[in-house]
């Protein structure tokens, strides 16, 4: 039994290899990009717009609103970053219901990669917003004694972020597989439906937490 789709290798050349995680990531990427391109190449600005344009507007506007609630003064590039994060995770998780599809988010490598991105984004946006010194001073709050704990917190939350998503998605597909063996009728479908819900919730949680971490990093506190 395979625990991670990383182990299923399609093609290898030296250190370079194409495993299931990378392959399905590419498929999701192609799906998202092509879908977006197909819809947005003929956008209309009138009163009457196509349904799919409406759907995309609702999705983008909804994400924008959520982000504004968390961080009212968001920098320009924050929406594409967090929006892409949410859409990618959501599509990966939802596509898990397709038989044969291995969700890339079920691989700890993927979730770790995404967490590292968030981990890197926090200081990038924070320093961009409030400056290098101010940002570093945030680690000394509320007192300099908290510095090791702040650094540990930073690392552990990144770890938690990746493990939470991985655990949920992996367990969801694992439960589906186990239930197929125990009770092949009906129950796996119910679990798959539950998987859809948890998949969307996990995508939301990941994106929201990333938004909270980044916006917390952009806040300038009182001088130490």
């Amino acid at each position, binding site marked *: 039994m395979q*625990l*991670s789709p*990383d182990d299923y290798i399609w093609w290898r050349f030296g*250190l*370079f*290899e194409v*495993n299931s*995680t*990378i392959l399905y*990531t*590419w498929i999701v*990427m192609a799906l*998202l*990009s092509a879908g*977006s*391109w197909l819809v*947005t190449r003929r*956008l*209309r*600005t*009138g*009163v009457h*717009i196509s349904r799919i*344009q409406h759907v*995309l*507007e609702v999705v*983008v*506007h909804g994400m*924008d609103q959520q982000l504004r609630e968390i961080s009212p003064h968001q920098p320009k590039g924050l*929406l*594409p*970053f967090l*929006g*892409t*994060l949410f*859409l*990618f995770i959501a599509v990966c998780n939802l596509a898990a219901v397709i038989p044969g599809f291995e969700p*890339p988010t079920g*691989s*700890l*490598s*993927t979730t*770790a*990669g*995404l967490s*590292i*991105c968030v981990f890197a984004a926090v200081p990038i946006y924070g320093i961009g917003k409030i400056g290098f010194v101010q940002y570093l001073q945030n680690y000394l709050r509320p007192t300099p004694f908290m510095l090791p704990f702040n650094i540990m917190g930073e690392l552990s939350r990144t770890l938690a972020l990746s493990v939470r998503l*991985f655990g949920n998605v992996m367990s969801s597909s694992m439960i589906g597989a186990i239930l197929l063996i125990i009770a092949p009728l009906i129950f796996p479908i119910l679990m798959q439906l539950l998987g859809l819900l948890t998949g969307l919730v996990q995508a939301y949680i990941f994106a929201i937490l990333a938004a909270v971490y980044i916006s917390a990093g952009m806040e300038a506190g009182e001088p130490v």
Partner: protein
Amino acid sequence: MLINWFTVLAQIVNFLILIYLLKRFLFKPILRVMAEREKNMADALNRAEQAEQTAKARARELEKEKAAFAKARDQVAQWREGTVKEARDEVEALRGAWMSNITRDRQAFLDGLKQRMVEQVVRIGGKVIRDLADQGLNRQVLRVFLEKVADGKDELSRNAMKRGIVVQSGIPLEDDDVRIVRERLSQWFPGVTRIQFESAPELGFGIQLVVGDRKTAWHLTDYLRDLEKEIMGNLFKNTWVKS
């Protein structure tokens, strides 16, 4: 080992590429179009608001015009009423004048007609009497004439002495008649020597006695005139009562 570090690296790269792609194909166009649509809608709303303001202003204007029109209509109605009343009064006055003219003309015509009728009747009456006059009727006339002279003889006798008596007759007198008259006159005016008889056709059917500037007479014309007066009086009295 659950983590494949090559895959981690590859996924980071993949994710960055995906960010770029979605930014390029999804977020930018959608956000741009949304902003544009919001702007269009705001413009449309502004235009609608402006149109509403214009419509309201126009409605107020129309309301004013309507009020002015109603006022003008009232004035016209008032003027029309006055004019119609004036015209009606004028027509009434004209009609009254016309009616009174007609009544007057009719009255004049009827009066003329009656007068001519009476005159004709009297004239024909007189002619008939004259045509039918004979000895007997002449005698009757003489008798009545002499009675009148007898009544006024005292008055006449004062002048009769110095001026004499003239008897003028419109009817032919027989010798007997002349004799009777002469006798009577001699009897009533004893001192009078000159008694003259004259024929006077202008008197018509009548006879008169002239003493200086005094005279006593009997004329059919007098009777007829009295009769005419009476008939006319009665006729006109009736006419006035009727009209």
